[in-house]
């Protein structure tokens, strides 16, 4: 009984902090329809700032906490709303997600840059004292504080939304932004306020939890990801349900830690994974109506390259790789190898996210599955058969993951794949039988071809060029044929597609299965290149990073995947060699990707598309000038016709940005 109470108190306290974090997410989402994946990172930044004021500069603790929570955090929220979030209204879901994921990277990067990577211990807020209601049960003042704060937040938010004019206005904006605007509400002020509340609660929760966890970036970020589960149980809109769920998850985790047998590593890891299990279950079980009705807006696509063009480029690439392999040392071959593998993963994302419109935050998890399976299988069978079997298994796992994903779209689907990725990290990949002992690495076998062992980066290069080129051909072929058009129909308008005879279930499962197979094979080859594999290489952050890099170059763009790979090699492999400071390098990488994606917030079709459009506009202008000398009137008409619709929309006075990209008629 005593033990039970101890775990219960700890659970209620953790749950209260989850509740504060989750309600911040809900407030922001319900007024701006943006699910902020950067919530945890912003909270982390605020907590580090607080630590800096308090422990480094020696400010009084209440001043430090007050300034961090009441000044810095809301300022961040207001600045984000004004600078980025308002532009996201008409942006496709994948790109919208990418922007908040970029927030995650940016704030982690900033934290790293300003305060470095070393872990710190945040002193406890109210000291080490506490009360002792019965012998053996010690409740610390900090635990009492968290519960009081959570209750205060709950009551405060309720009063704000239901008892103030401002709250009524906020609810009006949620109902119908345009209508509220017509009734002289300034929706900008309302969303700014909701972002300020969101970031404040994020910062507050991070400061509250910091004394319990080490003050480290991954710990704090993952902690807030746990709060996603509570927010999803509250369907991203209900504050009371979110609160109850958060407390429940806190208690559940705590009791599992206390009562599950500690001898079994797998079962213990379930306790840490509980929030993510709840997240996945809540996504599967509940209906998430709001998002399903929301139309998925579409990024434009250029005409795809023809198959001969792609084939020709691939052949050229392979010949180049063969020549390069003989000139390059092993080191540069290694870089090229990793770049090609990265291109393969990005191509799997082009298929599932760009073409099928299903955001996947788990591609690196599938890679991890691929490399683990090929390694374990090849100990009992020939390499190529093991590879085939591993890819087949990954395909099946991908199809199985797709099943709960069937009813989900947009942010809910992204959360489901994220939940799957984190469960793989927390529950499966940590097992000693999977990647070897914790923190250890798996020795991955290398293939041999016609008796020729492909066991160096140099020798693998042509094979990888062949595979990466093959992936490009496969994706282009799919796009040009029926499956590609069906994927596009499903992504553009699922309602019309199913009403005209497309089996959405089958199409979605097929897309997931193919993309998982592609990722699984990439993983196996990645392992062969490095000859070693560790769990950390395949964690959820790697998948986030891949999605961001792809979106930057154009999510539905095949050349974009190759450019993204080049970007990765330069920024993530070459940069660390030039700058001999790992912490600084990581900060630069995260900030670089983050800021690049913010740049894309106003241009969600990606860099490549931007190049093409600019080129078209310039060409049209040149043609216009030439023709203008001969026939002035016709030339003007031609030039106008040549400007892409989106650009025309952007340029229209008072027109909403991106309006041109949203389907022409739309019945309005």
């Amino acid at each position, binding site marked *: 009984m005593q033990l039970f109470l101890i775990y219960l108190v700890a659970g209620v306290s953790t749950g209260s902090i989850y509740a504060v974090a989750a309600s911040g997410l809900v407030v922001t989402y319900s007024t701006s329809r943006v699910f902020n994946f950067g919530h945890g990172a912003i909270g982390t930044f605020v907590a580090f700032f607080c630590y800096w004021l308090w422990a480094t500069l020696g400010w009084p603790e209440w001043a430090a906490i007050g300034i961090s929570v009441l000044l810095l955090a809301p300022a961040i929220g207001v600045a984000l709303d004004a600078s980025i979030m308002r532009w996201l209204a008409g942006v496709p879901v994948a790109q919208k997600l990418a922007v908040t994921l970029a927030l995650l990277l940016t704030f982690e990067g900033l934290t790293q840059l300003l305060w470095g990577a070393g872990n710190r211990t945040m002193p406890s807020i109210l000291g080490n004292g506490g009360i002792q209601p019965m012998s053996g049960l010690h409740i610390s003042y900090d635990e009492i504080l968290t519960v009081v704060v959570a209750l205060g937040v709950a009551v405060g938010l309720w009063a704000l939304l239901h008892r103030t004019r401002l709250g009524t206005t906020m609810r009006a904006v949620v109902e119908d932004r345009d209508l509220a605007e017509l009734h002289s509400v300034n929706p900008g002020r309302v969303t700014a306020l909701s972002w300020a509340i969101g970031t404040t609660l994020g910062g507050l929760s991070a400061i509250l939890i910091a004394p319990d966890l080490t003050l480290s970036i991954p710990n704090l970020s993952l902690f807030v990801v746990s709060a996603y589960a509570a927010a999803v149980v509250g369907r991203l809109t209900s504050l009371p349900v979110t609160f109850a769920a958060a407390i429940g998850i806190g208690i559940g985790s705590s009791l599992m830690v206390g009562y599950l047998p500690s001898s079994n590593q797998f079962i213990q890891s379930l306790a840490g994974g509980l929030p993510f299990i709840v997240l996945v279950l809540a996504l599967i079980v509940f209906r998430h109506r709001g998002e399903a009705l929301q139309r998925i*807006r*579409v*990024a*434009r*696509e250029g005409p795809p390259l023809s198959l001969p063009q792609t084939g020709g480029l691939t052949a050229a690439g392979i010949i180049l790789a063969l020549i390069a392999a003989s000139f390059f040392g092993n080191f540069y071959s290694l870089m090229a190898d990793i770049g090609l593998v990265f291109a393969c993963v990005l191509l799997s994302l082009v298929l599932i996210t760009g073409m099928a419109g299903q955001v996947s935050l788990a591609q690196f998890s599938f890679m991890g599955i691929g490399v683990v399976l090929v390694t374990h299988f090849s100990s009992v069978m020939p390499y190529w058969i093991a590879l085939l079997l591993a890819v087949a298994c990954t395909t099946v796992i991908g199809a199985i993951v797709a099943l709960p994903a069937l009813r989900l779209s947009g942010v809910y689907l992204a959360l489901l794949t994220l939940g799957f990725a984190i469960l793989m990290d927390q529950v499966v990949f940590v097992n000693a039988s999977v990647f070897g002992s914790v923190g250890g690495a798996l020795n991955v076998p290398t293939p041999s071809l016609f008796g020729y062992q492909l066991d160096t980066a140099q020798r693998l290069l042509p094979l990888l060029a062949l595979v990466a080129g093959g992936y490009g051909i496969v994706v282009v072929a799919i796009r040009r044929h*029926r499956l590609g*058009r*069906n994927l*596009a*129909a499903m*992504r*553009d*308008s699922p*309602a*019309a*597609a*199913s*009403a*005209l*005879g*497309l*089996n*959405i279930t089958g199409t979605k499962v097929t897309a997931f299965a193919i993309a998982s197979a592609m990722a699984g094979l990439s993983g196996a080859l990645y392992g062969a290149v490095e000859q070693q594999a560790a769990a950390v290489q395949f964690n959820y952050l790697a998948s986030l990073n891949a999605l961001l890099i792809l979106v930057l170059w154009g999510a*539905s763009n095949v050349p974009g995947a190759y450019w993204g790979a080049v970007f990765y090699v330069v920024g993530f492999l070459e940069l660390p060699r030039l700058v001999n400071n790992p912490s600084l390098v990581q900060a630069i990488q995260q900030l670089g990707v983050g800021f690049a994606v913010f740049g894309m917030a106003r241009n969600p079709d990606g860099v490549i598309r931007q190049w093409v459009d600019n080129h078209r506009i310039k060409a049209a202008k040149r043609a216009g000038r030439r023709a203008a000398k001969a026939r002035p009137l016709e030339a003007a008409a031609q030039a106008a016709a040549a400007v892409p*619709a*989106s650009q025309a929309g952007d340029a229209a006075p008072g027109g909403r940005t991106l309006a*041109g*990209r*949203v*389907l*022409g*008629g*739309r*019945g*309005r």
Partner: protein
Amino acid sequence: MSTATVTPVLAAQDIRVNFGGLAAVGGVSLDVMPGESVGLIGPNGSGKSTMLNVLSGLQRPTSGTVRLLGQDVTRLPAYRRARRGMARTFQRLELWGSMTVAENVRTAADLAGRWKPGHQAAEVAEEVMTAIGISHLAGREISELTSGQGRLVEVARALAERPSLLLLDEPTAGLSDTETRQLTELLAGIVADGTAVVLVEHHVEMVLSLCSRVTLLDFGKVIVAGDTETVRKAPALREVYLGARYAART
């Protein structure tokens, strides 16, 4: 009735849809014979679009049955109804925005062609676009169309499936008078060829000229149903559209 021996293409019986406490559709029945066009009219919010969603399978009814060519399809998902010969357009355009006009029509023809032998997708797509008069738009991106053109593409896409039952949700909204007249003529031809049509429209004149029978809905209930002449003369039509009832109440 003389048609009693013929199987109706569509037979919807006592359809009810409740959204929470609100009865969006409260017990509506609808029969359509081959080569017949039935109009479904009523003011905004009268349950017309919900009814079409139920018929096409995008909305599960709270109760009631939908039969297509004699078979109960109430529990079938939308795509399986489409494969049995049902096609529809949408009031709020649901075009596939990343494709050109031709690709939109071609994809629909492909989807239908997979289930019907002898259906040559590419040729059918060409034919339909010519018939509707949108061949000149074939290469256009959807974002470049006017909303009237978008509606025509929706109709073309549905026709490319060579459906036995065509559900049209306000096909003339946003069309010019000339375009409306042309579309009415085209639809009359399709009906004459034996296709069954359910037409949801605000354009009462078009409904009255195209449809042989009309059902008037208000607040999810059938106010009047019968052949076109009866409904045309019914006082309820004017009341519902002109709001006489509400005027009388106040």
